[in-house]
Structures are given as C-alpha cells and as structure tokens.
C-alpha cells in the first residue's frame, strides 16, 4: 500500500495470483483493539486456543503454545475465553507496558506445501 501499483505488463496474464496463501503478506493485526497476552507460567499447553483461533494466529512449536502471530491476530478474544486455566489476558492495544520487541517481530511465511 502506498507504493505505485503495478502496470498491466507486470500483472500475470488473467490477473491470476501466483503465490498460494499470499494473504500472509496482508497484516490483519492492525484491526486489533485488544491483544491477547499469554502467561507461560499458567499455560498447560492444551492448545484449545489454537484449535479455536479463526486466524491461525496462535503459534505452536513442538506441541507447545509458543505465543502469538501479532501480525495477523485480530484480537477477537476467543482464545482467552476458551482457555481453561485463564492463562490468556486481553490487554488494550494502547497499553504498551511490558511489551518486548521480540514478541512483535515479523514472522516468516510458512514453507510451500
């Protein structure tokens, strides 16, 4: 956005989208008004948050809940609501206390299938 739009010569024939799943480049994270924050101490890695996330924004590494993809999380709060041990708290976006840059780092797109 903001850059010059591609001309007709740059667009693939028929306007087809040649990169499967390229919506990954579109960040829906800026829709959010509240962000989920995980308390790792409380988390029991039941992955209920992951299975019920509409945006695939709950990251799982080695069978464990590994935080959030804040680039895409829309902040709906389902994860916090379904968490059986209340390990997820929804915090208003304008509250930036305790935010670390690492958590908000840009995520690599998943490898092609």
């Amino acid at each position: 956005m903001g850059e010059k739009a591609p001309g007709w010569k740059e667009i693939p024939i028929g306007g087809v989208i040649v990169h499967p799943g390229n919506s990954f480049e579109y960040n829906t994270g800026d829709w959010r008004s509240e962000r989920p924050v995980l308390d790792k101490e409380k988390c029991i890695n039941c992955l209920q948050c992951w299975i019920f996330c509409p945006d695939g924004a709950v990251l799982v590494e080695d069978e464990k809940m590994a935080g959030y993809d804040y680039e895409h999380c829309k902040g709906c709060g389902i994860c916090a609501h379904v968490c059986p041990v209340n390990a997820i708290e929804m915090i208003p976006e304008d509250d930036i206390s305790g935010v670390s840059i690492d958590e908000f780092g840009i995520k690599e797109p998943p490898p092609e299938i």
Partner: protein
Amino acid sequence: MPLNLKELSKKPELLSPGHRACAGCGSVVAIRQALMAVDGPVVLAFATGCMEVSTTIYPYTSWRVPYIHNAFENAGATISGVETAYRALKKRGKIKGDIKFIAFGGDGGTYDIGLQSLSGALERGHNFLYICYNNEAYMNTGIQRSSATPFCAATTTSPSGTVIPGKTQFPKDLTAIVAAHNIPYLAQASPHNWRDYIGKVKKALDIEGPKFINVLSSCFRGWRTQPVTSIDIVKTAVETCFWPLYEVENGEWKLNYMPKEKLPVAEWIKVQGRFKHLLKEENKPLLQEFQDWVDKQWDILLQKTGDTVHKVVV
C-alpha cells in the same frame, strides 16, 4: 490414530492467515478444522459466501491448496466436473496418486441457491465431500433470511416488529433431505466438538462416493452476540438439541452426542440479540412453539437413531 491436538498442530496450515473474515468469525474455525482432517492432495470448490469472499480478496488468496471460485449455485456442479476430469485422466494414466475433492458452501449456497447442483452431484454419485458451514442467514450480503434461518430470528429481510416476530417459518432440515439421497455418509457437526467434527471429515474423506457434512458455525454479526462467545454458542445449540450431532452411514442413523441434560432452547435464544423480542412476555407462546418444534425434531431423530427420548428439564 486417535485425534489429538498435539498431532494436528504438526500439520501444515492450509488456510493462510491474513484473510479478511471478521475477528471472531465462527465459520473460519469450521473451515480450518475441516482442513486439518486432510492428508495429501486436495481440490476445493467454494460457493459464493462469507468464506469465499473473505479469503480471496484480490490480489491476495488465503488458499495454499488448489481452489475454485464458484457462483452461489454451482459448487456441487463444479466439483462434479473436476472429479470426473480427474477420473478420466487417471484412467488414461495422465494423473497418478489420489486426490480428494471438497466443496464448501454456506447455508445460502447450500440450503437455497445451490441445492439443485448439490442434489444432482449426490445423485450422480461423484466421489466428493460437501461441507455446508451453516451460519443461518446470508451473512456476507447483510444478514438476509435463508431457509436455514431459525423461527422468529430477526434478519434484515425478516425484521421483528409489530407486523411479524422475525422469520415466520421454521428452518428446513437439509441434513434429512440429503439423507434421502441415500448417499454412503452424511453427518451433522459443530466446531466446538472438534474431535467429533474433524473425525467425521476424516471418516468421510476415506469413504468412496458422495458425502455431506452440515456444520453449525456462529456469526456474531448476524446472531447479535459477542465475538468471544462464537464457540460457546454453538455448544449451547448442541446442548439444547437445536443442533444434534449425528451421522448416517449407509442408511444407519447414529447419534454421536447425547446431552446429559437437555437444556431448554431458551438458553440458546437468550444470548442472541436476533431473538431478543422472543423473551418478552407477550411472545411467550412463540417461544413455546419454538421449544415444541425442537422437541418434535429431537423425537423424530431419536426414533431414527433408536435412542431413548429425553424430556426437557425446565
């Protein structure tokens, strides 16, 4: 292998994030979970609907698997054609390996506009699975009533007011209509019970012939609820027996979940803004009519599955 979340989490996500469905959308949860059951190559066809428009906004696509965009009425016909082409090419040795075919449609594209193409595809016996994500109205175009919309639900084309109390008809029983096609497998599911739902999709994909799954998926915009309750609310629909979980395999009806205590349907209604008027004193007879309808449908189902009848606990 029994289904567990730890194993499922290792599979690649077929629906990429960055799609433009509402925050807290229940339908994406249903689609995501269905795709978790897929192993190996798959081709998807989507009827027009929320999930089709929100995942394919140019120049982006959220699909990491082959996907065919369809009009409202022809997802069933398209998937028939693709499956037939695949069979023909396979016969000539031009394609190797197995490919699964899944068509998705909302209730508008399945109950209403796409019913003829779905019926045709089921009757012709193509090897495909059709999943209807039923959010009970045309949510994508602005909450118009469909034939899946429940009795007395307020929508923009059946508003509740002094003239009518919301939709004046009961929803049609599409799952039973599909059962009348005598296909090898069909089921009704809900994403809150992911084990049951993903298991059903897995089972369906392993069966040869046409299959159908009707999955209730909440829409907080149209149902007038809070996004965080998107999963709770479909659970309540199952607990009140408004949306029973069952499957029909080769003509044999089986109930998959019997609520310990059948809740009154008012428990489901009272948390939804579209039924707000039903809680008024003067609309009590309508609420009773709704409850009687649920009880009757439940009794009919239990007769088919051979389970004993539960009486409502008030």
